[in-house]
């Protein structure tokens, strides 16, 4: 039982006064960030990440803080889904379908409680899955040479648009854009400057933290500015016409929990797999979990009308996916989703290179992190059941006060790292770029991934070519590499044929629920 011994060691590392305090703060902030519409796990972690560095936290405490935020945000997303029918973040979309009808029927407390328990079950078992599966994947990854790694990066980019992507050209565009930005700066292998146009600031390249915070946080502020004028009246109206929902006591009876348990367990498995596989992620995990439960249980046509299992399933699904997504990120160093890409950025800025060697070289970090996830999960359950009323009140903070705060905290974080106003200007530029690209439906995650992984990808290509003495066929030289290339091609082409259908399926489920609910 290597894994168990490692995990015990992890608890040794994680259980210190400082780490526990950070986990608690992370859980608390994460739940709030997840609950607030407009802030989700990716931009939440993005805003807090620079702060963690400016404060000089070590790798393990910083990771514990930020992954607690990540898990917390996955919990928090459900709160506004249930109470306001507005998903707090992308993966919580499916929770609105049955959560809001339950709340309207006066069962808001029950819905919040059962979804909190479902979140706990989903992420608890997913964390166990992470502890079991990641070391196995590491064994495979140790067989990888530079050519296989290059193919793996290609696979990650090819599948990043996800199965519900409707325009693969735009995903590819975004990946190329990010990779192109990564090339700016002095070439690590030969020492020549590239794309710096004589500007000294650019010799170090573009710091990915600056790009991430600009793309995720500042562009959100600009979107709010865009919609603040004309639409605010109608938004206000919508808020007023929506009756304030009393939460009631956030408890779920034992029989209700038992009633939902099979749904939670099935959804956990589905969500975990969706998280591990490239190109699926938490949003799809919760969608598939909900769709599966609807198929299995909908004899009496209760789904979409406030069936508690319809709340439990997507919440267990998306929280399990959040844990599953950590498997490829830690074991291979290749993230499969936006938030894990941001977490990868955290590791890279701490000078920790994820991947198979992480497990042998820095077992403290890996197992300390996994242990901290277990602890954070228990904290989250404890926070989320009795205190859900407090989090619900946070939803009342209007964006006109919240968004300026988001902007300012972003500035403080980036300024704290470098003390350079040039970086702040670059961040504003990325905010504008992010706003524009969102208009064109260009996904932002492949850009981040490109900036993060571009140099590693190139280094592996060049290493492979040096080994083969410039023979390009070496990239397809092993069965493993060929398999990875085939998966990449398959993953890129599949959405072209089924992407619209999957997306339409999600939209249709939303529409149906809206028709029924109101």
């Amino acid at each position, binding site marked *: 039982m290597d894994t168990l011994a490692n995990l015990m060691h992890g608890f040794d590392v994680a259980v210190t006064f400082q780490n526990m305090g950070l986990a608690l703060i992370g859980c608390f902030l994460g739940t709030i960030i997840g609950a607030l519409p407009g802030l989700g796990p990716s931009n939440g972690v993005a805003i807090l990440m620079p*702060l963690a560095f*400016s*404060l000089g936290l070590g790798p393990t405490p910083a990771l514990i803080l930020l992954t607690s935020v990540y898990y917390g945000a996955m919990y928090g997303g459900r709160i506004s889904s249930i109470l306001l029918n507005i998903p707090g973040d992308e993966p919580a979309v499916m929770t609105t379908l049955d959560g809001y009808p339950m709340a309207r029927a006066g069962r808001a407390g029950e819905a919040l409680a059962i979804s909190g328990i479902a979140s706990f079950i989903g992420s608890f078992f997913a964390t166990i899955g992470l502890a079991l599966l990641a070391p196995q994947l590491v064994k495979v990854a140790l067989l990888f040479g530079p050519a296989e790694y290059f193919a793996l990066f290609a696979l990650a980019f090819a599948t990043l648009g996800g199965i519900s992507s409707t*325009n693969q*050209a*735009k995903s*590819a*565009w975004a990946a*190329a*854009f990010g990779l*192109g930005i990564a*090339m700016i700066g002095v*070439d690590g*292998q*030969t*020492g*020549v*400057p*590239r*794309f710096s*146009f004589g500007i000294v600031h650019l010799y170090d390249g573009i710091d990915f933290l600056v790009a991430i915070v600009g793309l995720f946080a*500042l562009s959100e*502020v*600009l979107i*709010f*500015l*865009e919609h*603040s*004028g*004309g639409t*605010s009246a109608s938004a206000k109206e919508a808020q007023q016409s929506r009756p304030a929902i009393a939460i009631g006591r956030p408890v779920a009876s034992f029989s209700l929990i038992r009633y939902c348990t099979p749904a939670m367990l099935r959804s956990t498995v589905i969500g975990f797999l969706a998280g591990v596989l490239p190109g699926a992620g938490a949003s799809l995990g919760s969608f598939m979990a909900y769709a599966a439960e609807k198929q299995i249980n909908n004899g009496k046509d209760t789904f979409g009308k406030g069936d508690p299992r319809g709340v439990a399933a997507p919440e267990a699904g998306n929280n399990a996916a959040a844990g599953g997504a950590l498997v490829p990120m830690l074991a291979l160093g290749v993230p499969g989703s936006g938030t894990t890409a941001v977490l990868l950025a955290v590791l890279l800025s701490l000078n920790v290179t994820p991947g198979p060697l992480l497990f042998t070289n820095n077992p403290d970090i890996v197992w300390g992190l996994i242990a901290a996830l277990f602890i954070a999960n228990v904290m989250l359950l404890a926070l989320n059941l009795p205190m859900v009323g407090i989090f619900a009140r946070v939803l009342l903070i*209007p*964006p*006109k*006060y919240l*968004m*300026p*705060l988001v*902007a*300012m*905290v972003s*500035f*403080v974080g980036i*300024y*704290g790292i470098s003390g350079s*106003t040039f970086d*702040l*200007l670059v961040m*504003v530029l990325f*905010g504008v770029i992010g706003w524009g690209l969102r*208009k*064109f*439906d260009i996904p932002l995650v492949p850009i981040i991934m490109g900036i993060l992984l571009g140099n590693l*990808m*190139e280094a592996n*290509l*060049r290493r492979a*070519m*040096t080994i083969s003495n*410039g023979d390009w066929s070496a990239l397809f030289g092993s069965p493993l590499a060929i398999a990875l290339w085939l998966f990449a091609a398959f993953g890129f082409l599949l959405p072209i044929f089924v992407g619209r259908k999957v997306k339409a399926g999600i939209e249709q489920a939303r529409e149906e629920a809206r028709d029924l609910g109101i």
Partner: protein
Amino acid sequence: MSDRIFGGIGLALAAFYVWAATTIELSFISDPVGPKTFPFIIGGLFALASLAILLRPDAPPEWPSMTRLAEIAAGVAVMVAYVYLLPSAGFVIATALGTAYLSWRLGAAPVSAVVAGLATSGGIFVVFHLVLGLTLAKGPLGI
């Protein structure tokens, strides 16, 4: 139409990128691939993706009206001004001004916007500087 223009701009960017890649000087240290090849591959991919967007455009996005665009431009201008003001005016003053402006434009009444500015700026100063010890830009008042 929007996507076609976008694809066109993308193609131009790709061409510029590939040109910039050709100007990378070679060093005396070298490997079989060299520093230019990967940028060329990226430039090619970028051009292909732009071309695909140009040839098969999606439905155009909903563009905001000119007044909303001006609103965004003003917001960006204030952020840039904030960055330039930061070293000379110091964190507290610059942040109070920036926050007040953004709150006001996001729909707060002028008085509450000013209060929000002072509260946000003071709050960040207390939490991040006094409690957590983060370095913030110093101004003439020493804060």
